[in-house]
């Protein structure tokens, strides 16, 4: 095995080709987002841009009021992440640490809630939100996603809290802390890394959601990034360079989160096992 040097380089080469194939679409998009339409027409999609042409991105940004879309996405994702974690903690505190009566049935419910396709909830939610005058508002999306994400959070966190060190809880009880204070002073700080991982998941998932925001956020001022980009796809005004510009500004925030959160995730996963 160790004598045959060529073999290892063949394996490496195959992997590098696969990796390039994976990254290529994104590179091609980036390459053409900064190309002038004329340059694109004469030299095609694979040439290096003759000069950096930012106006495709700038024009598209202004045309769809992208700053507003970013803000909508950011508000929705961060509020859902905070509230979703909070709701998961409350549920898991009762189910994992409190072991309330019927907890198995609650856990089965949250498991099934995780499996449900959003199509089976969408029309009644649409109808109810209209009658409550919440339709076409970020608030409607925030409420719905907080509950949907917390179903996953509750399920995951309940199993983490089921293994919570009882001596810590007993020590808090001896100090005269009630349930409420024990939750905030002991349980939440100790499970901090796991909560950070949940927060990250909720943020990224909510940011990337498409189906429900597509249905609920119909006015331009309320759209999130994926909806704004998704409904423009196939628009007649979208030529090749504009389309790649739109894809690029959709990719960049996601890449940024990936880089920011990568640390949290790896740290959380290694430290998340509170034993």
């Amino acid at each position, binding site marked *: 095995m160790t004598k045959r040097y060529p073999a*290892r380089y063949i*394996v*490496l080469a195959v*992997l590098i080709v*696969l*990796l390039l194939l*994976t*990254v290529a679409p*994104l590179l*091609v998009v980036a390459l*053409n987002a900064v190309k002038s339409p004329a340059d694109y027409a004469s030299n095609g*999609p*694979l040439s290096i841009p003759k000069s950096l042409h930012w106006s495709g991105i700038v024009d598209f940004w202004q045309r769809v009021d992208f700053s507003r879309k970013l803000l909508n996405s950011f508000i929705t994702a961060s509020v859902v992440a905070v509230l979703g974690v909070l*709701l998961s903690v*409350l*549920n898991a505190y*009762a*189910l994992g640490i*409190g*072991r*309330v*009566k019927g907890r198995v049935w609650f856990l089965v*419910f*949250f498991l099934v809630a995780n*499996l*449900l*396709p*959003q*199509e*089976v*909830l969408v*029309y*009644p939610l649409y*109808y*109810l939100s209209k009658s409550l005058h919440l339709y076409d508002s970020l608030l409607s999306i925030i*409420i719905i996603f*907080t*509950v*949907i994400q917390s*179903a996953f959070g*509750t399920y995951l966190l309940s199993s983490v809290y089921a293994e919570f060190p009882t001596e810590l809880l007993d020590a808090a009880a001896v100090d005269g802390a009630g349930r409420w204070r024990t*939750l905030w002073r002991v349980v939440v700080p100790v499970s901090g890394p796991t909560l950070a991982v949940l927060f990250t998941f909720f943020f*990224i998932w909510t940011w*990337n959601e*498409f*189906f429900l925001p597509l*249905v609920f956020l119909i006015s331009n001022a309320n759209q999130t990034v*994926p909806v704004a*980009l*998704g409904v423009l*796809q196939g628009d007649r005004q979208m*030529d*090749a360079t504009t*389309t790649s510009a*739109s*894809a690029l500004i*959709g990719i960049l925030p*996601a890449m940024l989160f*990936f880089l920011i959160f*990568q640390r949290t995730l790896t740290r959380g996963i290694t430290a998340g096992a509170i034993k």
Partner: protein
Amino acid sequence: MSNRGGRHAGYGVYLIPGVLASLAVIVVPLVMTVGISFTRWSGIGSPPWIGFDNYTRLFHDANFWASFGHILLLILAMAVVPTLLGLLLAAVLFDYIAKIFGPRWASVFRSGFYLPQVLPVAVTGIVWGWILHPSYGALNRILDTVGLSSLSRNWLGDPKYALYSVMAVMIWFQLGYPIVMFMSGLQRIDPELYEAADLDGAGWWQRFRHITVYLIRPEFYVVLVTTTIAALKIFGQIFVLTRGGPSNATLVPSYFAYKNFFEKAQVGYGSAISTVLTVIIIVLAFVFLRLQTRDQRKGL
């Protein structure tokens, strides 16, 4: 399970917000959708009860069967191929690349393959819609450049190729998830096992078959069931890439339901489609769970 008094008293109150919120957003809408599926409702006024008519119509609807046929192919592209290929790649990265070229190489590859997973689904749709565009798309331009113009196709606009194109995009999108899951699962395995196998003269392939595949089974189940369910729920990529077209060649259940809800105002029919989809997903998940627990008992 008797939680009377003492240690387990007084926790119930913490469930109240979660229970109320779940009732409003999940339980009530779910029950309503199932109820509406027995009516002919356009979304306005009171829904007339028609019993099982929507369901009988569904079973005679070629589009409904076609959409589930497409899903079978998408399960192949989103669950089967990425899981098997991901298992092989994870093992190569963990038990070959990391040992010969160092763990940095392995983690660079892992991040690279995972990249498509972090992008918004709608955006991956735009990227690929752009690459596969019939007139200005990069793929056809590349084929022209290297003299293979004859291979140029209207990848997403020709009913013969549209679904296969979507499948290729989904493999690209999904591959990173199993790799990450399996590589974190492989961390559990005691390196001494591999060394012992080495001493016994087992080659890489034998180690892979008898150690890696055997010990990674818990992750294997999780990945297979989550990707299969994701395939059943696929919506975003279809909406952005093809809108179910051309001529329903890429129609999937969730988009079929969406069209009935919001384009045709056939809410009863859309609800029946959603209900069937939900039942299939839940049954599938529980079958997987049963298989997994049986497998674990056998394995011990």
